[in-house]
């Protein structure tokens, strides 16, 4: 019974991700004065897509239909490392956040390869832009987590979370602010949200993620969409875990777990609201402005690391 709790955490993120996406689009619609689709719409989409047949270009290689599944598997495996209700995730060892970054990189690598196998121009275009964005995003991603890890003097996600639990919310240190902003920018860039890439558009000039999944259809497209929403859920849970873990259950008794679940849901809703507000207020950046955006993110990440040396240790 005791070892099942972490598994439940993982299932919550995996199956809750489409709901998260629905909530975000609902909130965005509301903010823009629209009725917006129902919160459960993403589940309907996935169900529809799973029933459809999978269209494969004539000259595509087996990698074309295997890539979406590998992307989904890698992202789902990454979820196993994220603490949700409890500081301890399913797997934990020193340096596991590097493994997290690695798994996300594995997912992205096969996403780009699957896109290029389609044989069309859009796959290559999406792939090349994704390559640039992810190349520039990986440094601030790691620098952010490193800064927090140095403050917590532990290289394990669980260790960082337990250390942050021990701190009180109000004496927030500069390192945390800088690290949070860096990681937030990276989260936006990684999941292809508005300032970097518009998830809902099919405009050639701007789309990055959509361009890659253009050729896929049926179950492959379902897996890709699902993996993308899991990634969003995963990154937001990581942010919560690293910066606002208060409310996570220490023990295993039922009431404590219920409280933790409630706190997690509330925090996730708050983040969704923030994300929706940002998306509806900021216009999408030009393609060649993205490197500067990520440059700022890496600068803040580096500054966070530098401040750990001078700041409160």
């Amino acid at each position, binding site marked *: 019974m005791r070892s099942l709790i972490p598994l439940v955490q993982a299932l919550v993120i995996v199956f809750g991700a489409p709901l998260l996406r629905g909530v975000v689009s609902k909130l965005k619609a509301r903010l823009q004065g629209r009725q917006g689709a129902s919160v459960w719409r993403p589940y309907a989409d996935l169900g529809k897509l799973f029933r459809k047949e*999978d269209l494969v270009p*004539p000259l595509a290689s087996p990698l074309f239909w295997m890539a979406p599944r590998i992307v989904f598997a890698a992202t789902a495996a990454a979820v196993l490392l994220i603490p949700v209700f409890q500081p301890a995730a399913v797997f934990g060892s020193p340096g596991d956040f*590097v493994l997290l970054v690695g798994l996300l990189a594995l997912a992205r690598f096969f996403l780009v390869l699957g896109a290029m196998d389609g044989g*069309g121009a859009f796959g*290559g275009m999406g792939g090349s832009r994704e390559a640039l964005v992810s190349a520039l995003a990986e440094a601030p*991603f790691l*620098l952010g987590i490193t800064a927090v890890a140095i403050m917590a003097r532990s290289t394990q996600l669980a260790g960082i979370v337990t250390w942050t639990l021990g701190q009180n919310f109000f004496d927030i240190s500069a390192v945390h602010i800088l690290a949070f902003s860096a990681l937030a920018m990276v989260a936006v860039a990684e999941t292809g949200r508005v300032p970097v890439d518009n998830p809902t558009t099919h405009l050639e000039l701007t789309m990055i993620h959509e361009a890659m999944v253009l050729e896929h259809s049926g179950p492959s497209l379902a897996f890709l969409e699902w993996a993308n929403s899991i990634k969003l859920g995963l990154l937001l849970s990581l942010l919560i875990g690293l910066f606002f873990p208060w409310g996570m259950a220490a023990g295993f008794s039922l009431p404590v777990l219920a409280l933790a679940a409630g706190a997690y849901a509330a925090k996730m809703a708050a983040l969704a609201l923030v994300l929706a507000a940002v998306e509806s207020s900021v216009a999408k950046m030009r393609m*060649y402005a993205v490197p500067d955006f990520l440059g700022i993110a890496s600068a803040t990440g580096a500054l966070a690391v530098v401040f750990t040396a001078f700041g409160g240790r």
Partner: protein
Amino acid sequence: MVWSSIALAVSLVGFAAVIPAAWIAARTRWLSWLPGTTLACSLLFGTFVGIVLISSTRPLRLDLGVAPFQFGIEIDPLASFFLILICAVSLPVILYAAAYLPRHYSPVQTQWIWGLTSLFLLSMALVVVASTGFAFLVGWELMTLLSAALILVDGTSKERLHNLFIYLLMMHVGAGVVAASFFAFLPASGGLHFSALRASGALLTPGARSVIFLLAFVGFGTKAGIIPLHLWLPKAHPIAPTPVSALMSGLMLKTAVYGFVRFTFDFLGGGPAWAGYVVLLAGAVSGVLGVLYAIGEHDLKRLLAYHSVENIGIIYMGLGAALIFLENDAPAWAAVAVVAALFHTLNHALFKSLLFLGAGAIADATHTLDIDELGGLVKRLPITGIAFLIGCASIVGLPPLNGFVSELLIFQSFLAGSTLAALPAQVILPLMAGVLALIGGLAAACFAKVYGVAFLGRARTAAAESAQEVPPMMLSGMGLLAASCIGLGVFPRLALDTLFSVAQTLVPGSSPPTEIAGLQRILVATTVAVLGIGLLTMAARVRRRVTAPWACGLPGLTTRMQYTSASFSKPIRAVFAAVYKADRKLDVLPANRPYFPSSISYRSVRTTSFERSLYRPMTNVVVTLATGMRRLQTGNIQVYLLYIFLTLVALLAMLGVQE
């Protein structure tokens, strides 16, 4: 101990026996497998010697005669690790070569290549096990000479000769500097035996220590390909026969790493205080610039050569971190950093050889190495495609493979840097984690480009269209390397435990910290998770229909619509334009009526900035000095007589002054 010396003797005889075997093989049809198997046997024995000695406390010491200078062999754990690396990694390459050579070269050329390759491997082994300065330098220069001979066997066009000339010249200068670093010990150590050097290392003056360290850094840096000294690497590796360029890129660079480690850790015991930072920064610069230059390339072998520069940069970052830990007396983490660097050396040897062999297979099937002329190869060369994919994934450092494990260890040692007392170490080491992540990201972009353009999508030329799968021997070579990449990726303890015992000898008083122990458990767990979920998703029976994709209303997708390597890397090259400084040439014909062009031609040539700004001025200085000297020889006898009288008068005047 007796067994290892017998095995060593047998492997030496084996190396030498390859030459007559190659000679016989060239003459008879059915004996063509002979040189390959002899070489393979001697390599097996070499690996056996390495394995036996890597964990033994007493190194095997042989003094082979005094001749003019001591010529001895000593195999201690560090030497045996590199011996294993050289012999084990070259086994699959030999397997590959057995099938590759007859298909590409005439029997005589094959005979030459077999003979020279076995001597090449022997010289590398000699460098690694040498125990005196003289033996080391003999092996060091022979290695360059034999690789140059191997390049010459492959062809002698003007452009190849120019590249070979640059390669040989830089290697000779590097060897000169290495010799100087050995000789710099002489005033203190008397002899050149490693034990004498080790003893005198401690009692060197700080000035001498930093001079020797700098000489060793520059000397071995030239051979390893650290950024300002890397000019020869993308010129020399691509022009060698494929199995040889795999050996050169995979193993020859490692002998430079071995030399550097032997000097800084074993002789100088960590070098001067600032040594770690120099090595760290040089590694970082080499890593970033190496991968950026690789992104701009579309010739596969040259791209892989630039990636060697990048990976050597990563290894040097690990060594730099180890030196900094040693300086701030944190031996435990110093050992981890050294182990990380050595493990990345082994991994790089594996996946770089795999990638070069893959490139050779592509060249064998399509007779071209320009990835813009390939495309859709994974359908026609399935097994090569899979092996190349594993190679690409591991060089980029994706989780289930060995590249990721060594980069993870290096990340951890960077993180541990924050616990050091010295302020600069606290700041620089964690920042290097960001640089390493940037290198990893750019490498992912580069290899996504290579694999996507070359193996996926539609075949761009008839050659790519009609490619045939390569013979099974070549596939088995690549398969062996791919399997070892996966094996070390999922079960790193196979190598890490022995590597820690090697690190003990280099960094005294260090026990492996606890964090590393749990590493293998989580790697196995995540791999099982990924495979499980993956299989789960693929289990569902899916109706699949093949239709032509939507081509925006055009009759059909043509191959020209696909992204080529230049277009794929355009965004990154635009962002890092400062590095490329490509000079573009756009000419529109006819010139006077620009708006009605009959033909437009665009050419963008990227000359490496180092060649223009650093190397050409140096050579110009020497050549102008020489032509100036030529005028001394005027041809007029009276001037010659004047030279003699002037010298005499000058010397007499000097004598007069001295009085």
